[in-house]
């Protein structure tokens, strides 16, 4: 009689301990669930770029185009970066030669709005030189921008666009 009660008690207690352990796990399950949830709903989450640029006041977007008929692709690996005044920005691009021929190309930059050219200065750019790509070569290239110390408050975003042209042999 007494022992059946004790057995029932023990069974109930074990069941509750299992629930407690599962709820401990549930806290951890929330981590991937939250990731997936935000991704599906497109909710902007904090990410490490924001952390590195705590005083970010401008969004820099990178756009890429390729001349008609040029057998190459150009892709921005960091399509959007946040910039803080006085900081450096580094963006990566991927160049691919899709032909069996060596290819000589040059990227031509342009800014929108135009005055952001004065606020985002190129320290280093793959567009400074013509590039020669071997047949089917894939190459990662970069641009490094120096951000002006003072940014006009109304300038929320700037776009830096590159268009890939064939480099014509000097005549």
């Amino acid at each position, binding site marked *: 009689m007494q022992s059946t009660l004790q057995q029932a008690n023990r069974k*109930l207690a074990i069941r509750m301990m299992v629930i407690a352990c599962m709820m401990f796990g549930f806290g951890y399950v929330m*981590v991937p669930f939250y990731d997936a949830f935000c991704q599906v*709903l497109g909710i902007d989450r904090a990410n490490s770029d924001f952390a590195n640029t705590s005083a970010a006041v401008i969004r820099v977007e990178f756009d890429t185009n390729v001349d008609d008929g040029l057998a190459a692709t150009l892709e921005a690996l960091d399509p959007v970066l946040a910039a803080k005044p006085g900081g450096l920005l580094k963006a990566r691009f991927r160049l691919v030669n899709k032909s069996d021929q060596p290819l000589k190309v040059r990227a031509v930059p342009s800014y929108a709005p135009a005055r952001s050219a004065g606020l985002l200065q190129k320290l280093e750019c793959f567009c400074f030189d013509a590039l020669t790509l071997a047949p089917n070569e894939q190459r990662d290239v970069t641009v490094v921008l120096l951000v002006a110390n003072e940014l006009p408050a109304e300038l929320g975003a700037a776009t830096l666009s590159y268009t890939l042209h064939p480099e014509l042999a000097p005549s």
Partner: protein
Amino acid sequence: MTTANDALHAPSHDHAHEEHHVSFVQRWFYATNHKDIGTLYLWFAFSMFITGGIMALCIRAELFQPGLQFWQPDFFNQLTTLHGVIMVFGAIMPAFTGLANWMLPLMIGAPDMAFARMNNWSFWLLPPAAALLMISFFVPGGAAAGGWTLYPPLSIQAGMGMDLAIFAIHLLGLSSIMGSINIVTTVLNIRAPGMTMLKMPLFGWTMLITAYLLIAVAPVLAGAVTMLLTDRHFDTHFFKAVGGGDPVLFQHIFWFFGHPEVYIMALPAFGIVSQIIPTFARKPLFGYVSMVYATCSIAILSFMVWGHHMFAVGMPASTQLFFMFLTMLIAVPTGVKVFNWIATMWQGSMTFETPMLFSIGFVCLFTVGGFSGLILAIAPVDTQMQDTYYVVAHFHYVLVAGALFSLFGATYYWLPKWTGYMYHEGRGQFHFWWSMIWFNVTFFPMHFLGLAGMPRRIPDYNMQFTDFNAMATVGAFCFGLGQIFFLFNVIHTIRGGVGKAPASPWEGANTLEWEVASPAPHHTWETPPSLEIVEKGLKAQGLLGDHHE
């Protein structure tokens, strides 16, 4: 009645003799008796209440005037943080567990809690946790200073005081889980014959549901602080933005625990006043079954509203609406409860002994706290009020006038059962009115401060807030003084009070604990109460007979 009592007294006398051979250390450090453990819990909770209260007074002293008088801002933040943590986890929750330990077995006719030895463990985890928290003031960097909500990034960047707080929370959580397992098992498995679930005193119901809530959410808090700990020392990136984590995720996990936690501090209070009001209104509790359902629905809803703490963090408007409406929905079962308490008093033969005064005070002030909660539930309003003193006013109306007042009421109500003596009624009533007045002087002006925009957790403020802050500080010191008076009151009662208490000092009390002698003998209900005794009580509570269900 007399025969029943004689039957009870006979075996208990034998045991009383056994007690004489038990040393102090054995009785208290190895305590397995539910009454001893309940006593330990209650004294521990009271000492933490005083500790947290002293911190509150240190905070209020600094806020008496604008400018920095006593503390550096960092120490001020340590004070608010530890005040919150200690009041929640050290004072209110252990006090309720202590009450449950003392009273549940008596009220449901059980000889003891289901797991006596685990009960000892769950209590003895508390003092080390409290010690860790107190030690943390003296380590380099001082105690945790990120608020009781421990939000990262502050809690990730803090010094080792935060580690001590995390370990303390682990211990406190473990203690609550073990205590809860004990309560659930006791309530579900060892009730007296004839006492079905829907005939159990409401205090049993609210403790049962509270224990379930704790088993569900205490591990979630433990998980959250464990993630904090690994983020701090083991290079994980749950909440560290630098490594790709998200501090907002912490808020989601914390409040998934935190909102039910608020009800963990409110539901037992509902249970207590549902015992006291029928006693002094000399009427059965109105709408017993609806009270049970209301308690259950509050508990279930409490899992779905955590987002109302995060309106200001930024969330899609549709999500804000979801949390806003669900939060407001909780007002419905809460309203049912308030209605039932008032209906119980309606046309009752009321008398106003101290426990009843505290219960009526509870109903009035908790309602104020509930309404200010409803206002905060309105998302566009909350984005204005978040982290102002309006919030501080709101949750102190719920926690002080709610949880704490119900605990005072419970203490006066059951003190004769615990000590065998009657407390001094005049002094009890003085304690009530004193607390009631100074509580309102302290916290009511905080509504105005918050509406005018005074932020919380900041040691300095704009000149325009001076008068109301000075008023709140005076109120707080007077309120604190009153609690010393309460301590003397209790000690006076333990020492003999105004005379011996009969088994049932309250005319309208019909639950089982009043069937045993006062003070309750060390061992009670070793043979379960007879069906006859149980049914007599149930009948008087309106739970048996014609108009039931």
